[in-house]
């Protein structure tokens, strides 16, 4: 049996088509890896008991010649994406026993393609965090060093792919929740242009920022998943019909130098420079750019995001679904249910969001943040007249040790390079760029103009070919 850790979706698909491998064999090998490693790594919160049945059906589909590139491929799903009839907890005690009553758009697409849904993966509660330490079900661990975090919030999905439990996974990215764990686990992780992938069936965190995207070992694999899950959906009014092919083949990279001056680990910066050199050899032109508003993207994010969180999570009141803790009256029941159901970070962001939206502070925080958000959008719009991509490290550090970032603000600062893609809606990808002296993966991040999603995948291949 081929080693799953080195097997790509592309290769497995070819082998199954030729009859050299069956989905049942592939899924069995993945299940064996899960059985051996999941107790330690805690990537999956639940492994679906019918995975082999799904694989059998996929094998029949392949035999009948009706297979797609994803037929029979084992895929892991982040625990905030709804699958009809299955539990979906968002990493929270609040929804620990909640069962989804319909399929998310992306799940419908994966099922139609014949993919095998392997299970639901661990995450920071309601996708809030950068380490999975905020999961109500214990953190996931980094397969490169189990004393370190895998990144978050989609940490479980990253671990599942990196440790050979599946060949690809879905995550959601509100401020870096796909790209940062991809970087920490040596994978390709992509946040599509806002609206390219439907959010119908994604548990809402911050609706103007959330986007579903793929984890995979290569850009070719990530593109296979992306092509499957993207497309217009009537159930998401922000979903678009525009096909994301803008700018394929263009090769000018802008580097916002001023933005890299503070708070970036020395080794990360060195790897970034080395990666730039490799890209030059691969035919890319590197240009320094000045983007004065960019440094405000993090404070703007930490105002707009909690504001949307506080309103979105108001629906979790213990009445129609989720955890209920009875109080003396209805308001008391709300309070008791929410206090028991939510973890510390969720409470913190709800309180913070309530503050920035409250009377007397709304203009100074929320409105002001939106003004700067528009300025950042404009800044990117202008800069993309002279360059095709903006490149930064994905995160200012490599994976840190559990418990190292106890102060919430310290954890927030980790999102410095990822949040602007969400604020602007621009597509962004994190690709592996080597290993640190202690064997931890590095990642670099690229952003492109709206709907240039396809062009981002090409960079990873160019970099891989020019190692």
């Amino acid at each position, binding site marked *: 049996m081929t080693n799953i850790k080195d097997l790509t979706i592309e290769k497995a698909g070819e082998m199954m088509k030729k009859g050299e491998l069956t989905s049942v064999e592939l899924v069995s090998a993945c299940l064996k890896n899960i059985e051996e490693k999941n107790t330690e790594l805690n990537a999956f919160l639940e492994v679906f008991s019918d995975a082999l049945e799904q694989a059998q059906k996929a094998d029949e589909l392949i035999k009948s010649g009706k297979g797609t590139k994803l037929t029979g491929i084992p895929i892991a799903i982040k625990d905030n994406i709804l699958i009809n*009839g299955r539990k979906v907890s968002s990493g929270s005690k609040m929804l620990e026993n*909640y*069962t989804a*009553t*319909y399929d998310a758009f992306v799940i419908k697409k994966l099922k139609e393609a014949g993919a095998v849904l392997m299970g639901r993966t661990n995450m920071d509660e309601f996708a809030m965090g950068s380490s999975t330490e905020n999961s109500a079900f214990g953190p996931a661990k980094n397969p490169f060093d189990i004393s370190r975090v895998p990144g978050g919030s989609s940490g479980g999905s990253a671990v599942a792919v990196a440790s050979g439990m599946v060949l690809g996974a879905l995550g959601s990215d509100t401020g870096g929740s796909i790209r940062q764990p991809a970087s920490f686990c040596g994978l390709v992780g992509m946040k599509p242009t806002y*609206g390219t992938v439907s959010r119908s069936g994604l548990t809402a965190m911050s609706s103007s920022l959330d986007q579903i995207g793929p984890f995979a070992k290569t850009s070719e694999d990530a593109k296979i998943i992306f092509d499957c899950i993207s497309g217009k959906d*009537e*159930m998401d*009014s*922000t979903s*678009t019909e525009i096909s994301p092919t803008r700018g394929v083949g263009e090769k000018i990279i802008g580097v916002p130098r001023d933005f890299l001056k503070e708070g970036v680990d020395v080794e990360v910066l060195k790897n970034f420079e080395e990666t730039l050199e490799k890209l030059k050899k691969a035919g890319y032109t590197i240009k320094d750019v000045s983007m004065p*508003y960019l440094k*405000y993207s993090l*404070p*703007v994010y*930490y*105002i707009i995001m909690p504001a949307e969180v*506080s309103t979105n999570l*108001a629906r979790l*009141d*213990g*009445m*129609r*679904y989720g*955890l*209920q803790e009875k109080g003396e*009256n*209805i*308001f008391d*029941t*709300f*309070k*008791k249910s*929410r*206090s028991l159901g939510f973890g*510390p970070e969720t*409470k*913190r962001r*709800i*309180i*913070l969001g*309530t*503050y920035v939206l*409250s009377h007397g502070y709304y203009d*100074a*925080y929320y409105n*002001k*943040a939106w*003004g*700067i958000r*528009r*300025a950042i*959008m*404009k800044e990117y*719009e202008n800069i993309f007249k002279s360059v095709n991509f903006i490149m930064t490290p994905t995160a200012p550090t490599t994976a840190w040790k559990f418990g190292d970032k106890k*102060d*919430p*603000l310290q954890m*927030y600062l980790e999102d410095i390079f990822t949040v602007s893609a969400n604020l602007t809606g621009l597509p962004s990808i994190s690709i592996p760029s080597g290993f640190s002296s202690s064997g931890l993966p590095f990642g670099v991040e690229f952003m492109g103009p*709206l709907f240039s999603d396809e062009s981002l995948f090409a960079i990873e291949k160019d970099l891989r070919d020019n190692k």
Partner: protein
Amino acid sequence: MDIKDIEKLAELSKIELSEEEKRGLLKDLDGILGYVKQISEVKVEDISVEYTRKNVWREDLPASGGLVIPREFSRELILKQFPESKDGFLKVKKIL
């Protein structure tokens, strides 16, 4: 900001907090707000950006306005999610 502010925000967001949680949040919020306050130094003009999104309307009917296939729900599965129900209805405490 003081403990009273935290208590007011907790009341607005319907969250019950222990004394320890209140003190912790006060400290955290001081740190976070101290950081995000830097936006007050930024001068921005009224900027118009190119939005790709627009309002999407349809008739409020289960299967029309472009909705080709109505979403199918299992009534039973939805009922099962209710923390408390009676005769197929959601049961809640007295509201008024």
